[in-house]
């Protein structure tokens, strides 16, 4: 089970059963499909490190997703 936490978002947390290992891009697409909302560009972080679309996600991974905004 992969846990995806959408921070600063009404989407909240999701737990996904997926055939792992799988790319983060696939996991994100599953989340988008399930929540029926487009999160746009995001920051994805696993264990303090940035995840790219190509990175592989393993079972019991916990991924935090933040909106891809900037400061001002």
């Amino acid at each position: 089970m992969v846990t995806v936490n959408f921070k600063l978002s009404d989407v909240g947390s999701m737990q996904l059963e997926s055939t792992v290992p799988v790319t983060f891009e696939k996991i994100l697409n599953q989340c988008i499909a399930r929540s029926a909302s487009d999160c746009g560009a995001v920051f994805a972080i696993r264990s303090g490190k940035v995840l790219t679309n190509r990175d592989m996600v393993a079972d019991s991974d916990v991924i935090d997703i933040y909106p891809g905004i900037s400061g001002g």
Partner: protein
Amino acid sequence: MFGILRINTATGEVKREKDNSKHFLLGGRTLSSHLVCEEIPADCDPFGKRNKLFFCNGALSGTTVSSSDRVSIGSKSPLTGGIKESNAGGIVGVRMTQQGLRSIVLEDAPAKDNGWKIIVIGKDKTELLDGNFLAGKGVYEKSDLLSERFGKKAGCITIGPAGENLLFASGIACSDPHGVCSRYAGRGGLGAVMGSKRIIAMVILDDGEEKPQYADKQAFQKASKRIVNLLKENPVSTKFTKYGTAAMVDICQALKVLPTRNFTSGTMEGAEKINAQTMHDTIKERGGEGRTQHACMNPCAIQCSNVYPDQDGKLLCSPIEYETMALMGSNLCLKNLDTIARMNRIANDAGVDTLDCGAAIGIAMEAGLAEFGDGEAAIKMMEEILNVTSLGRILGSGVKIAGKVLGVRHVPHVLGQAIPAYEPRGTKGMAMTYLSSPMGADHTFGFTLRDEEDPITKKGKVALSKKFQLIGSRMDAMGMCNFVRYSVRDDMTPLLDLLKARYDVVISASEFDDFVKDTLRMEHQFNSEAGITALDYRFTETFYDEAQLDTGEKIDITDQETAEARMW
């Protein structure tokens, strides 16, 4: 034809001219930097008579287009010694349009003991009035007095005691839609340039009768609606609406780039006490004058700003932005939003840049003048700046000078301008941007963080920084809010269609980018002629020698790489 109003601050002479060039059409930073490079000798004294101050609105100012009324202020910066463009939201841009003006120029400089003047620009005349009654007052009181005398709808521009005393961290405050001078062109010491010309305020009256003319009004209205739809549909823009830029606290904490303890760490224990959710909840709980989803200009579909109330629901500070939450918060190990709000309010009243002053206070704490985490001490230091005490003069002169005077080596700046709220050893893309901006360390120019697959490597960051320098500069180039860039990042057509419908001028995407690149080239050339060399585009040595505590990274970017990132 576009109007330019030239005001000689020594003689009081006023001249109106017209110009039809594309620089004037685009306005914004395209125009302000063009005029700086054309008319200011790069080697001049920023406080001397040969420096000028240019106020330029943008191509779509005064129209129905969302988020299009930024005013760019350009000059030679006393803080960096190079070119500066700093822009602000509010209503000044639209008031200029209503007076038929694309640019206002303050030229020359009177003797330093001359009385203070207020420039008042109306439809029938422009005059210089006695402004001595404003001298020494904070910006909030000046703002009230200007509103009382000229009306809440006047577009007012003023400086605080810091600018009156030529402190390098002083900014220029512009009227917001409520008539309060709360929108800052904060960076680069332009408040001091205005002070050196003995202009304490400029008022653009609400009696202007010029209305925007359209080559194709129907097409313009259609294109204007398209922009609104793009902004409302963009999932990133909409995040700004609920949380504003404060959302970056959690993001930067997670990425280990939240500047903490004078830029020595990238995370702060207890950062959640000053994050976006805490701010949002506090504003909602206190109610009263508190607001999220607040616009700095009308119209604006993004509404990223906020009004932070005190415990009684009265306005304490508006807005509080992420950069301030970090530089006056985590950078000083402060975990209380009320403390940050009070410091921000004092900064607004003093008329200073919260980034440079927050960073300077970090230096003062590093030097032992106060403990990190001591909120009351931090507030007292801000009051020293407001009261222009000896220590206040040091802190209000920016982080580089504070470091020199207080004997601190680890000083977060590039070209003398304080590093914004992304610790550079944790994000080499932002580091590259800081090291290649003509304005000194600048985050709005070249924001790479979101697109860095591996923030701690420098590989690929020259190209990445340059890509986003171009994207970021496009909005400044025509007076648009920087956050519109998310919606036109890959396709500028919606904005270019608006230019066609307004002016019947076709500017292709590549031609527009040529303007942006030309502007960057000119700005770097100005800096070179001002005596800024490759050696100045560096962090202080400690960033190269000492590892950031959370990422373990040092700056490993070479002079050659930053030179490449400055090449257009």
